[in-house]
């Protein structure tokens, strides 16, 4: 399946992916309405320091431990994409305890939030990759699936 991949050596640390992600998931029509004066809550985060920066978002693991361990059954797969039913989520954050990449985040309303590859918002494909100026984030088929 197509996934979001990170080319660390090309990341400028510009954080544009975070803004594009927060905007794409805001439901708002323009970026100013979505983000100006509001907390930015992206599901992708740029981390690192100095020369080394890179973005981290859900890896959409083949056998995601977050789904196995989710106490409410809110986390589930749709196709290969790990999605969260935020109505079902009770905010226990077991997913945060389990994700080896730190890619599931506590959301503003208590429920967890995570990257769903923009398949559920108006963007339709990952806004982080689409807007990355340096192809440090790409959305592509990279490996033959074994499962």
């Amino acid at each position, binding site marked *: 399946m197509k996934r979001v991949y990170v080319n660390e050596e090309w990341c400028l640390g510009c954080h544009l992916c975070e803004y594009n992600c927060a905007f794409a998931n805001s439901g708002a029509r323009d970026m100013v309405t979505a983000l100006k004066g509001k907390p930015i809550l992206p599901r992708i985060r740029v981390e690192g320091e100095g020369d080394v920066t890179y973005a*981290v978002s859900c890896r959409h693991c083949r056998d995601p431990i977050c789904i196995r*361990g989710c106490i409410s059954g809110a986390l589930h797969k749709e196709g290969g994409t790990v999605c969260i039913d935020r109505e079902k989520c009770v905010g226990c954050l*077991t997913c945060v305890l389990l994700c080896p990449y*730190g890619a599931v985040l506590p959301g503003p309303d208590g429920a967890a939030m995570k990257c769903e590859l923009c398949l559920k918002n108006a963007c339709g494909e990952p806004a982080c990759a689409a807007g990355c100026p340096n192809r440090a984030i790409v959305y592509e088929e990279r490996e033959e699936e074994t499962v």
Partner: protein
Amino acid sequence: MKRYVIVGGGIAGVSCVEGIRSRDPEGEITLVAAEETSNYGRPLISYYLEGKTDLRRMSWRGEDFYEKNRVTALHAAAAEKLDPAAGELTLSTGARLPYDALCVCTGSHPFSPRFEGLETVEKRFFFTTMADALALEQTVTKESRVLVVGAGFIGLKCAEGLRDRAGSVTVCDLAEHAMSANLDPDCAPILERHLVKSGLRLLLGNTVTRFEGQKAHMQSGETLEFDVLVIAIGVRPETGLFAAAGGDVGRGIRVNEKQETSLPKIWAAGDCTESMDVSAGEPGVLAVLPNAALQGFCAGANMAGGAEVFDKGIKMNSIGFFGLHIMSAGSYTEPIYTEVAEDGCKKLFAKDGVLTGFILIGDVARAGIYTSLIRERTPLESVDLEALKKAPSLLPLGRAYRAEKLGGAV
């Protein structure tokens, strides 16, 4: 066609179905559930009382799960006798279920020491099943004075769930600190202060010596009056069925990393089992939902001819009380990092060059990076430990690790 029998409809049992179906779409699966409801996340019962979920949303894998997976699910059914020689399970109704592979997922049962006069308490409950939650919902009113005996996570989650439904909620525990099995004396006071601020009454280092109707005579000499009693002292693996069949039982049903038991064609998974705790280097009862799910899937896949292993088991818990998040994992060996503030803390433990455990209260972001280091037994000499102590991130794990995980399918 292979005949599978699963005893138990909790998370291990449901995950066992998923494991079987991952390899065998054809076999006949019969699931025997003791409760009237199955396929629900047991820890959700306190969220139900709190009004944060409802019966429909509590269905763990969806209400059509059994139908979609072609499972014959028998509810409110009691497994009475397991005959490994004949390969047959007998139910209390007399019905016999022959099997080619069986998985014991019987979970645990609440445990209560013998309190003098307990039988004189009219309204008394445990808090481990949906039925318990529904009964409490019916019983507790705005006037009820609730007494919870046990300040572990079951008792405290129950207290949280009842706070807004009851007149008052008091929690007592013989231990000096709340959640004494998960927190240490440095961290527990942070939780205790928060619970009291949130409206609970806590009586620690103090428990009931004798009940007399609606009175609890406490060790301190105090007499507490209450209307509703919840006993939440602990749970024990439910091993009776398996032990009676001659199976090997320690503190729980003994299983290997394939979830095989000592009996042929019988696997076991979840809270009823005892398995290797990689952070402690010895077997333990790792009774938390994620482990039940992982073990159940592993058992199911292997019952259908697979070669799965569950070999990274540790105790791990994420829990919140009135908005304060607490995470704990692994074994508390030698502290390598301690940070304790008024409203949060962080403690990391290591031994023999690997991270073995942590306690986090308050800031729990990205704790899974620590959990993963414990489960994978990652040598600490291969990471930038000083940076990791300060904050969990992928930076201290090195470029090669990131290239593999962020640049490839995992």
